[in-house]
């Protein structure tokens, strides 16, 4: 489990607006989270902090009791971070994976090879000679094959073609461990919509929405028709009609529309959060 308490981080210490400000968050094990938010909200920064690549300026992060910035080997061997920018190593993928995989107890060379062929990556080509998309697929394949407990992916589908994106979703869903916690930071909502089971929406003031998607579908009612509802806190036109987000006091299960939820959170956050708590209060009564 990941516990984040009063986390603050700024690129210009003491000056300007902090990227993350008094962030409190609990990330449960065994889920695939979509880490969403507009540009500059701190998604990559949060992944860096969780991977121990940055030091929190305030507050603390605990991952299964570990402080990531200590970078203890026993912690690192269960963690994988795939950044948006990857090194162009002058090695063939299998050589890279075999030499590096020895550090990860659950690494499976066979799984890596099969993922490379699924992703259509030429294993005879050096990583440095690969295109951005191919390189990304190689690193993702390696980290999936490592079977780590924590997998953090920053914009994983950037540079991938449409079929690769589908293969990525399939591979992640099929080969991630039951107890793995996967965090995917992205702007490409459509690429991950089918595989995530929870969302994290970040906000500059430290307010955050972190819930399983089915729970959101119970706390809010997502209506997919053209009838205008008085209690709707957000209405969005879709190519096929429209979606409205309303309070859900009966807690009846509805299908969450993540795109609409995202827009509502950043467009009418107060009303959205009020609707969620209203649903809770009414259902408690």
């Amino acid at each position, binding site marked *: 489990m990941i516990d984040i308490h009063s986390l603050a981080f700024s690129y210009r210490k003491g000056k300007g607006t902090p990227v993350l400000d008094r962030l409190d968050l609990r990330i449960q094990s065994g889920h695939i989270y979509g880490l969403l938010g507009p540009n500059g909200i701190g998604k990559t920064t949060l992944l*860096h902090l969780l*991977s*121990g*690549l*940055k*030091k929190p300026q305030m507050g603390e992060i605990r991952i299964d009791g570990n402080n990531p910035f*200590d*970078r*203890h*080997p*026993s912690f*690192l*061997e269960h*963690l*994988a*971070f795939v*950044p948006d*920018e*990857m*090194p162009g*190593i*002058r*090695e063939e993928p299998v050589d890279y994976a075999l*030499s*590096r995989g*020895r*550090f*990860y107890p659950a690494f499976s060379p066979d799984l890596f090879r099969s993922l490379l062929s699924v992703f259509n990556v030429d294993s005879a080509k050096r990583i440095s000679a690969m295109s951005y998309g191919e390189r990304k697929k190689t690193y993702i394949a390696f980290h999936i094959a490592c079977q780590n407990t924590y997998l953090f992916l920053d914009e994983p589908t950037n540079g991938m073609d449409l079929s690769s994106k589908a293969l990525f979703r399939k591979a992640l869903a099929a080969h991630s461990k039951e107890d793995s916690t996967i965090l995917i930071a992205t702007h490409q909502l459509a690429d991950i919509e089918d595989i995530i089971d929870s969302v994290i929406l970040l906000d500059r003031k430290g307010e955050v929405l972190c819930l399983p998607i089915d729970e959101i579908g119970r706390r809010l009612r997502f209506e997919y028709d053209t009838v205008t509802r008085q209690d709707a806190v957000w209405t969005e036109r879709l190519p096929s009609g429209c979606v409205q987000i309303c309070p859900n006091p009966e807690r009846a299960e509805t299908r969450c529309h993540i795109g609409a939820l995202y827009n509502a959170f950043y467009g009418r956050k107060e009303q959205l959060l009020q609707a969620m708590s209203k649903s809770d209060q009414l259902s408690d009564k």
Partner: protein
Amino acid sequence: MNPVFSLSRFKKYFQYDFGRIWRRCKMDFFLVSLTGVVLYLLVHLRHLVFEGNWGDMSYSRQGLAYSLLSYLTALLLIRVYGWFTQKSQCVDYLLLPASALEKTLSMLLISIIIIPGGVVAVYSLLDYLVALLDPSYSTYWVNKYEYLSGIRAERTAGEELTPSFLALGLKSILNWMVAGLVSLLCALYFKKRKTLIAVCILFGIPLIAIAAMVQNGLPLNEILQLLNTWSKYIPLAILPLVAAVYYKWKYTTV
């Protein structure tokens, strides 16, 4: 497993680190090792072209080649570890499951023992091969031994004793280490112009010191004596330089 140091983990990390460096930099390593042969060829080529005869590779020229070799070896470390300031490469290494101490030790072992040792070994082997092919040429080590023995033989009772070969060898190794560490730190701490900065530190500081002494009217023998005295303190820099390498591994952020 001990989070600070484990021998098996260190071995695994060292093999990985060395393997990756070897694959990437072996050509640079051999090119630097060729310094002596290149200088030998240049000297003889110049003689053949301008004087029409086979020249003489004197001991002083061999000494120059050896000094050049030591500086080039130090600068080679910038090529070997210069990736540290590239974000993507640095992330790749920082997240490898090994402790900061293990990563530091591996880096030090490679950069101040294996690489200089390997370069000197290849240089000496090539020097020996040249001596086999050219009967008029004797190797740098033989010349150095004869030169130092000559100085010893000329000394008379009452004069200060010349340091032993062992002490001279140790001093030379420590100076190589300091030069290597200075270069290594430039590779780790500076994002741009690493080589230029390292050259400025390695050559600039002694040059400024000599220029200042000449400006103050010190005679040449006193300048040499002062430089000799100061050089005894150079090895003292090893510990803080090593600590700076460890600090970088432990606290680097991206």
